[in-house]
């Protein structure tokens, strides 16, 4: 009896277990990949710590064709402002530009050129359009680190008084990101 080895039922379980395991892993990967396509899953959307905090101490120098700003300017705002990190070398930044140009009518946008030569950033805004009320240059990329930025484009919604109330680590041309921003904006106005 024992010479027959494991029973048929047990052998079937042993056959099925690795297959079931591979199936679960496959389903999980499929979920992640389709989520990345739809925008509901973003592996780069990593930093929660900045939300709910005051803006970090910083200052960015003037970037043609705009005027730079600092944490003091953000602490003094009386209506919400969107901070948008961008760069001329960043393709998703071009893709979100039409959205920013539409958004600026109802929400002032202050831009920060991230690790970008001032001439290149100025040329980019000449061609793609300029949605920014104020523009600063962060050529060294050090201001971005204080904000917890890991790439461009990234946007932060600042409430009056200089508090960060929302952060998005993807282009605003994505519907889910846009909806999240609108929801956060609605809350600051309430």
């Amino acid at each position, binding site marked *: 009896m024992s010479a027959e080895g494991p029973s048929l039922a047990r052998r079937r379980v042993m056959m099925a277990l690795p297959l079931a395991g591979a199936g679960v892993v496959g389903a999980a990967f499929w979920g992640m990949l389709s989520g990345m396509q739809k925008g509901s899953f973003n592996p780069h959307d990593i930093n929660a*710590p900045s939300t709910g905090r005051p803006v970090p101490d910083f200052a960015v120098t003037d970037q043609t064709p705009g005027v730079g700003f600092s944490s003091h300017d953000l602490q003094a705002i009386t209506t919400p402002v969107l901070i948008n990190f961008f760069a001329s070398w960043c393709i998703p930044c071009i893709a979100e530009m039409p959205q920013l140009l539409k958004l600026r009518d109802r929400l002032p946008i202050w831009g920060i050129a991230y690790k970008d030569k001032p001439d290149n950033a100025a040329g980019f805004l000449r061609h793609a359009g300029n949605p920014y009320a104020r523009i600063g240059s962060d050529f060294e990329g050090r201001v971005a680190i204080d904000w917890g930025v890991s790439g461009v484009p990234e946007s932060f919604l600042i409430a009056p008084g200089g508090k960060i109330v929302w952060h998005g680590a993807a282009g605003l041309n994505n519907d889910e990101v846009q909806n999240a921003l609108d929801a956060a904006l609605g809350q600051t106005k309430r």
Partner: protein
Amino acid sequence: MFQRGRHASVALAAMLFLAPVLASAVDDPSEMLPDPKQEAQAEAIGSQLRCLVCQNESIEDSSAGLARDLRKVVREHVAKGESQQQVIAWMVSRYGDFIRLSPPVTVATLLLWGMPALALLAGIIGAVVIFRKKPQAAPLTDEERARLEELSRER
């Protein structure tokens, strides 16, 4: 996310071709601190910090621009005489726990850290259950008993 993707793929290609040649991707020797003791400390800290562009590489291993900037920051803090905890806390306050390649033990990560012990325990329990359930031999039928007696008598 083009920039990130491009950095990641460039880093991947570089890794594939240069991995045997380059142990560390500190691109430029001028990045290194003059004091070898401090440089060693900075490397020890940097190897615990995730490059947020390539995500599974430490900032010491990555050649992404952000990794280079973060390496510079780490070295500035080390040169000022800050401890490992202080530098890592500075990073975590900006990028969250995700920047640590080894997550801290919190309520949220308890299951993660406890998993090896839980897996071992599950294995032991499984083994005990399986080995206890040794198949019992079926009692002999009348026929078999008669045959057994016959065989024993022949001796």
